[in-house]
């Protein structure tokens, strides 16, 4: 048990577009609800990554920044080492891509990644922009990592291929899925994606995100942790060394309800709510 944790925010000025600072705020806020004290270390490029962090986070960013960040992380080496030791890492969008083996640079040529996740990213035929609604499918020893649907917004051009060394975090939920809100939020969904319109693109093959060990990469912005407290509690639980019982705040539940309903009614062809 460790009720004082250190969160390391990696290169927030390189990888911090799309409201990603919100994930750090959400971690601090949700940790406080669980009585966990947090300290935050923000690392700028050129500075070395501390090896004594309990949770490392990386956000999205533009292509030039992404290449610079990947290079700095490979030269530093600390993030790969702590991730291999089973320390929690969360990476969003560009951060997710650069944790893999390779990703496209601004000219579309493959740039080397950090290699923490067994994923490779090339380009989607068209940019993926819109609501993303996914059902978590990742498991550890037969136990689901997460249970509640994940909601967010994606804005990327990457097609990410998950290799055998990692597993997809989730699967894209088909459009028109039925959502029950009572007594708890569940998706009434039989996992057949064939031929159905789906809410979002994610990795591009019907899956979304990737995880191995205690590293999670995802395309979910929103910010991801503000809209999905279960994921924040999973990461904070790993960092604190204890399982956190869910604490749900009414305005977050209301937001999730509204977003899930909107996503299930989202028409990808017209980009409007039906």
């Amino acid at each position, binding site marked *: 048990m460790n009720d004082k944790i250190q969160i390391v925010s990696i290169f927030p000025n390189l990888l911090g*577009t799309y409201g990603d600072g919100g994930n750090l*705020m959400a971690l601090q806020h949700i940790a406080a609800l669980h009585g966990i004290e947090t300290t935050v270390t923000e690392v700028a490029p050129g500075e070395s990554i501390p090896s004594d962090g309990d949770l490392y986070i990386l956000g999205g960013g*533009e292509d030039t920044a992404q290449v610079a960040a990947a290079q700095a992380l490979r030269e530093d080496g600390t993030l790969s080492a702590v991730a291999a030791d089973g320390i929690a890492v969360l990476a969003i969008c560009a951060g997710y891509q650069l944790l893999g083996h390779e990703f496209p640079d601004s000219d579309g040529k493959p740039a080397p990644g950090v290699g923490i996740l067994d994923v490779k990213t090339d380009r989607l035929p068209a940019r993926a922009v819109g609501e993303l609604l996914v059902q978590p499918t990742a498991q550890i020893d037969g136990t689901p990592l997460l249970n509640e649907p994940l909601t967010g917004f994606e804005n990327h051009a990457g097609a990410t291929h998950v290799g055998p060394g990692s597993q997809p975090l989730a699967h894209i939920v088909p459009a028109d899925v039925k959502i029950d809100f009572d007594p708890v939020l569940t998706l009434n969904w039989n996992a057949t994606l064939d031929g159905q319109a789906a809410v979002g693109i994610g990795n591009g093959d019907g899956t979304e995100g990737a995880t191995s060990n205690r590293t999670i990469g995802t395309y979910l912005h929103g*910010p991801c942790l503000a809209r999905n407290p279960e994921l924040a509690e999973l990461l904070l639980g790993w960092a604190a060394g204890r399982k956190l019982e869910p604490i749900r705040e009414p*305005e977050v539940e209301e*937001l999730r309800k509204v977003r899930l309903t909107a996503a299930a009614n989202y028409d990808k062809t017209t980009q409007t709510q039906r």
Partner: protein
Amino acid sequence: MGVVVQAKGLNQTIRACSSSRVTHLSKLDGVSEKVPFRTRSAVAAGRLAAKTSQRLGKGEGMVVGGKVALRLSPKAMTDLAGDRVEVLVSSTNGKTSTTRLLATAVSQTGPVATQPTGANMNDGILWALANGPVGAPAILEVDEAYLPGVVSATHPKIIIFGNLSRDQLDRMNEVAILARKWRTMLAANPDITVVANADDPIVAYAAEDASNVVWVGAGQVWTSDSSVCPGCGALLARDGSIWHCTGCDRIRPKTTWELDWTAGDQGQSGTGFAIGPDGTRYSLEGLQLPGRFNASNATLALAACDQLDLDLNKAVELMNTVTAVSGRFATVKVGELTIRLLLAKNPAGWSELVDIMPPAPTPVIITINSNAADGRDPSWLWDVPFEHLRGRTVIATGDRRHDLAVRLRHAGVDFVVVEDPYAPNAQLPPGARELDVIDCAATYSAFHELRTRADRELASSRPGRDQREQGVV
């Protein structure tokens, strides 16, 4: 037409551009004889569509009119522009206000064609050219993503680049990509003079290779979208307002114009001077548009006036007459409340608006939508320093009020979520109803919904008067 209580300072020149006037003209009037027949007919058809749209109460008809005309005559923008487009203004924030300040200043030489509202995509631009005074010089604002297309269609003499920061990322992609497109555009149009804000490294990157650049130290408060050099990807360092790249030799360009701004105390307005190339200090104290960002807009406009060889003292005098611009900072009555309308559509804009709001505990209304014009992803709410609003209660409304509520919860700001705060029975925080005027910051589409609603209510409270005959803009 937007009806704004404080429309008294607007000059007649700009009024003459409003589409409500020209709809009274006969079909082909108001377009120069030199314009090809196909485009003149297309404009006539557009007018018919615009008039129908107005009659149906679907809005001002400008976008519809422009759309119809462009469909019938794809070269209409080039035909109508001729060689009279003096200045295009593009910027993430402030383009509507800068355009209005500049158009008003330029009116010292006679009538000007400009947009009566912030319609700044192809349709709105076309309509401003079709309906402005015949042959008059045009001063137009242009959406950042549409700028390259509009430049090649209209061949402007000058372009103003104010600032580039994250806004509608779902549509604009990333700011560095946009800056690269602007570079390509300037390389293809070497005759254009660029008036550019040297304090914004992304703008500086976009303009640096142009053959004629007037660098203006117009200031930059929001630096989070320019921490990395858009040219080489290395980190930028800042020493006061002077930025430089740590990886290449890029540095803030030497300026010929400069804004000298002194902030006021909390809730008090500051004062500014625009300093010209010869050291002349033009006082911006008389500007009625509030805040540092409007002094910055005025400085850019004045630098453009200098390029146009105008009387700069007269230009300042005219800019001082501008009050509300397309409803921005206007005081309007909506339902049970009288509100001051603030357009707040992205973190950079927000970071300056917080300073002009009255101090806590005065409550404020915040309206967040995520329609196409707002950006469909409101994640940017997490980049706004809402923590500065602590000590007061925010009335959270708009389609994305629940996203705002979660953000405010995390920021430690008290809030109430209200679907329609203007309804008679709305549950508002104590003191809100007693305020003479309550500040309402709204995203783009929410802002326009409020203006429309205020207009409609004003019109219905004054039976017997044609809404279109009232105050314009």
